[in-house]
């Protein structure tokens, strides 16, 4: 378990991160501390990167069925820099605005990354959610068709971003459930 060079974060950097993300001071410092513990030794925190596996095995993401998608959406070139981690924490923080969360939720749920959530994506989402091996074909198709019935307004068997946005704006649980408390802060 290596440690980065222990530099205190500059006050200006802290202020800048506060202005550019939805995180509070305490949360940023917390994430900074934990990042320093995990990153490889001998590097300045702004240059160090974490692998996708390291981030996937964080306690906050360890049991999340969508952790691979989250890592893919927020990482660049399959690694996480400190700012990537901050960006991820900012989107999942409590103070983030709904439009930002909906945007990233759409990217996370778009498994085949074609800009739409189509039936294949929906089936994969449902399989991940239910996490069971004995899934009848009927149940899957039933659920998929119900979801599309509710939110696919132009009947093209796919959810575009505006349809997804419209559905999530009506959803009462979305803001509450799309939150992660990173590192116990």
């Amino acid at each position, binding site marked *: 378990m290596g440690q980065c060079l222990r530099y205190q974060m500059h006050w200006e950097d802290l202020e*800048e991160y506060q202005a550019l993300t939805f995180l509070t*001071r305490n949360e940023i410092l917390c994430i900074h501390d934990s990042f320093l513990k995990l990153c490889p030794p001998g590097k300045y925190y702004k240059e160090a990167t974490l692998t996708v596996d390291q981030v996937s095995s964080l306690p906050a993401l*360890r049991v999340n069925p969508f952790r691979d998608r989250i890592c893919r959406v927020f990482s660049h070139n399959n690694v996480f820099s400190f*700012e990537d981690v901050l960006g991820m924490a900012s989107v999942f923080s409590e103070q983030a605005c709904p439009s930002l969360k909906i945007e990233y939720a759409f990217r996370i*749920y778009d498994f085949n990354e074609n800009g739409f959530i189509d039936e294949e994506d929906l089936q994969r989402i449902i399989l991940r959610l239910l996490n069971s091996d004995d899934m009848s074909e009927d149940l899957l198709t039933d659920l998929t068709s119900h979801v599309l019935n509710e939110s696919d307004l132009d009947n093209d068997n796919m959810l575009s971003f505006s349809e997804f946005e419209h559905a999530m704006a009506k959803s009462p649980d979305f803001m509450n459930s799309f939150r992660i408390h990173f590192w116990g802060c």
Partner: protein
Amino acid sequence: MTSAPEPGIPAPGGKAGRRRQLPERVSGGLSGARGAVMSESSISALPPGRPSRQPFIHQESLSLDSSCFSSPPVNFLQELPSYRSIARKRTTILSRDKQSGTLLKPTDSYNFQLEGELTEDLDSQSIRKYALNISEKRRLRDIQETQMKYLSEWDQWKRYSSKSWKRFIEKAREMTTHLELWREDIRSIEGKFGTGIQSYFSFLRFLVLLNLVIFLIIFMVVLLPVLLTRYKITNSSFILIPSQDVDIQCTVYPISSSGLIYFYSYVIDLLSGTGFLEDTYLFYGHYTIDGVKFQNFTYDLPLAYLLSTIAYLALSLVWIVKRSVEGFKINLIRSEEHFQSYCNKVFAGWDFCITNRSMADLKHSSLRYELRADLEEERIRQKIAERTSEETIRIYSLRLFLNCIVLAVLAACFYAIYKATIFSQEHMKKEIDKMVFGENLLILYLPSIVITLANFITPIIFAKIIHYEDYSPGFEIRLTILRCVFMRLATICVLVFTLGSKITSCDNYLCELCGYNQKLYPCWETQVGQEMYKLMIFDLIIILAVTLFVDFPRKILVTYCSSWKLFQCWGEQEFAIPDNVLGIVYGQTICWIGAFFSPLLPAIATLKFIIIFYVKEISLLYTCRPSPRQFRASNSNFFFLLVLLIGLCLAIIPLTISMARIPSSKACGPFTNFNTTWEVVPKTVSTFPNSLQTLVYGITSEAFAVPFFMIICLIMFYFIALAGAHKRVVVQLREQLNLESRDKRYLIQKLTEAQRDLRNRLD
């Protein structure tokens, strides 16, 4: 996804008008062909409403003519101007392709035009809301700041001040989150048990705050002047006006003398509010003061007492409604067909804040259960819709019969409570010191015991009855809960009305002397206060006892004697949210009713809820396992506040009757000089200047009330009509969207075919 616009398709522009050009130009020529294709396809037979959705695996079997209704190639859709302008709005000037996420150079005239449009939007959106990573946001902010130089001084100052104001608000909000009570506890509960149970604890925290604020109001308005005068902190004195036109018998208030008292009577007094507790600040009877004379003004204590009651009821109502507006808005937006939205469950079904492996497994299984239950419910609802008329008649008559049984059960419980209250009141007046300790307490607490027993038995009966009524599962749960809620809260009302009837009846004829039974109840408000106090204390004792003597032993038995089949079947306790919520709403209703008769009751309620919070938290963490059927947080919040609102309405009824109808005691309390409690208000109004008086009388007369009511009705009908019209427009727009999408798919199909032909011809 390509970044350069393809020839033939207009460049993505910011103005909405440009987006619609393509369909308009082309659709005119093709509309005839479209009509021809429509008539051939099998899907044209569908009604124009919602076309039934066929599962995607069947689409290959559709005929070639209707293949234009299958999903068009996605990359074609990504080139459409509508898609690109929405994508641009989401990520502003950068493309979604992360690999080449470089900022386009500002020297490019096309991009400069984009940025020019962008700065108009930058004012409204703060930079955090952009879906970009931090380095990109930094560059955007630099652009923003360079743009600022071109603005006038006034605009610069405006933007600077709005930014500093926003920063100040955020800092203040950050400070207040630190003050939030029990933040860490509730977060850890959320992580371990999910958001359903967490919403119960948040609700409990809300009630603690509400009671604290109610107590502060009462303290400021009623207690503070009395305390200041009594302990000579300010130079003020009490005004005591002897009552006129009242029989001397009505003002006799025998306070029990302190002679040789056994120790156990202290305990009894503490538990029932009699004896040494009766003439303390705890009860109404202590405040026999008509005013407090300060140096500059006279403080009208009776008016203040009444206004504090009205104030705390109004505050509770406003706060609850404000908190429930969120849930209510969402319930309104949801269309009526969907009892529970599948979208909500699939996309927002997973609690991202779960960190525990076992909790995650539980969440998976609860989602499986929920989704299967919803599909099952759908099937049952379809079955219900297909009922024949004779089946319907049979079901409805059965339901009528079962509802009569429910009413009979309720009536039986109410009668039992009535009888118990009368018995308890009669025997309390006899020489209670001469009775044995246990018998004493039993008689004092008899109404509470009967209420608690009724509240244990009736849910079981209701759960059995509802099986035969053949409702859909979701509706069953709601109806059972509603019945239990009504049962619980109505029992308090029955108790209070029984007391009221006892107070106003003197040996089976109306009391003419003082208006109430002054022999048995010289100070009836204090007696009612004592009953409420007893209910509250007993409630707390029962909750503690159940946790200590049922939950913990159960857990120990199940853990250590798991070899016994009986204990294995019984299993660990599950945290039953509806029962717990009803328990605390019951406690809060008692507090609301009792705060008028016992000003310190809200403080006791605050302490009680704090104790309950810790007890329930410990019980949850050590003895409960999470139930496989999870409550959804959004539904829970609305449900809790709805039940609380029902409790508030049921609490207001006895209060208004006792304030307006029953004459106030002449022997004690601030209202000795008034006929009823409410009379303070007309007497105060008559001291106003004449113009104000006529205004007040005008507003409260029928000449004002009836037109006002009619205008309110008209406004309500207008809004109902407006909502109906909007609904129709929404349906029409959805249909139109449907048809536009069909057009789009057809055109894309035609275009791909044309391109294919061209390519074939060129090869």
